[in-house]
């Protein structure tokens, strides 16, 4: 899927040159970086947390944080991998934030708890609901962004072979989940 269909894609070399210019103090080249990554990061964040409004907030935060910390970026990994690591971390925080509130209120027995306020899982038919953030990320990068396991390995810091195995396990898990859902539909129609 071309997630940035309206954009002329930038080559990795071009991106690194833009990054160097920003590191040298220029501001405007950062706009091209934002334009290049914004759509794919938006979709990535949206599917990671399942909430439209919050995913937009996170994308903004990713770009602002990346700009603020761009001086720390070294070409030992691609800029794309570096940016996705920031995005993953912020998505993880968003997911943790809500469940953290839920959990902690319960821990100190303050009150009857109410439903979590976010993570509506409105995306893609709820298929990702039962997956951990790490598994979600793998499904998004592999299935939606159609990245190779080698690319995902660079983005996540895991080994490609381990990712391939994990992806197969997720695939089996989802198949099992769907079989059970189908069985439930047959046994308990209307539920």
């Amino acid at each position: 899927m071309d997630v940035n269909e309206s954009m002329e894609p930038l080559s990795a070399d071009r991106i690194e040159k833009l990054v160097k210019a920003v590191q040298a103090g220029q501001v405007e080249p950062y706009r091209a970086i934002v334009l290049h990554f914004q759509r794919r990061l938006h979709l990535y964040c949206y599917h990671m947390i399942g909430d439209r409004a919050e995913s937009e907030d996170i994308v903004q935060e990713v770009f602002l944080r990346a700009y603020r910390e761009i001086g720390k970026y070294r070409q030992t990994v691609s800029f794309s991998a570096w940016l996705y690591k920031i995005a993953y971390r912020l998505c993880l925080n968003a997911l943790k934030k809500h469940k953290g509130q839920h959990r902690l209120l319960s821990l100190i027995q303050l009150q009857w708890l109410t439903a979590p306020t976010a993570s509506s899982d409105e995306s893609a038919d709820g298929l990702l609901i039962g997956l951990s953030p790490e598994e979600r990320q793998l499904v998004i990068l592999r299935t939606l962004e159609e990245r190779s396991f080698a690319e995902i390995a660079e983005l996540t810091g895991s080994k490609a072979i381990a990712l391939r195995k994990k992806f197969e396990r997720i695939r089996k898990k989802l198949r099992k989940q769907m079989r059970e859902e189908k069985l439930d539909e047959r046994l308990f129609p209307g539920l």
Partner: protein
Amino acid sequence: MSDYSPGFEPLEHFKRDAERGAPAPVDFSERIMQRIELDSAGGSSYKAYKPKRMAIGIALIVLTVTLLCGFTYAITAGVLTIKDDAGREIMQVQSPEPIHAEQVELLDRIKRTVNNQLQQGEAAIIIMGQDDIDAVKRHEEPESYYPVFQGFSYSSTEDIPTRLVGHLNELKKLGDQVADAKLTEVELSPYLGHPNVLEPEKWVEASESGSGYPYAYYKLKPDDQAYMEDAVLSLTYRKGDSTFRLSGTYGEFTSVTVFDKNPSAERIHEVSGIPIYHTNGQDAPYLTWLEPVGDGELMYWLNSNADLKQQLRFAEAVIKAAKH
């Protein structure tokens, strides 16, 4: 999933759904560049960055009061919002859903029943009501869930295992005496994860003996990972008849929600530049505050039977100790 068949590929289905339901493209570039220019002109870092949805707070400017220490608060529709000196929302105080005393008693009874079945180091997640039981079996999020623990206890902060507590190590700095109160117990509780990812067949269903109310629980033996960043550390100190139970956890909380029957700016206190909210009108009043550590914050709760002045003195000692 009406198009399911035995050879059906769920990820293909996911991809089709994702493409059909994708959010509309958003051009972030203009707002990002404006933000960068604005912050560069002001010579500030991005500490002042406020997420888009927080912009609604601007409409409340007439109700916003700047306090001497720099943080601000605004109150509207019964919701009190506390912001830091960079204008970033850090705490929201709102009224809770009405709670019936019978519900609280029922929950306490069920928690006690399940807790009594646990060995040290074991934990359980409790789900109450048939709707929530059915939800977790479908891998869906329940309306509510309640963790119980037989956590690890220690008699000194020196005994807290370093490798288990991550950023919570900061709490060790408090030592065994705070503001003349002596440590009596340290408890470490794990983070148990979300109930909807647990295996449906392992939930134990039961009904409460007095009321017949259905509930289910899932016993867990948390691994070391559960004690890392998401664990909760509780330290109990005593001075005379006064008990101070301080609970802390680490997270990257962009904002936290505190429940109080009557949110009021009068119960915001400031200690060393940190806003502390004192809940009131509830069964268990407490002080709560956030303290920046690393990339995130330590969130604290202080439950105590001492008067407010003593509690604030204790909180001040905690904040100062953590800064050293």
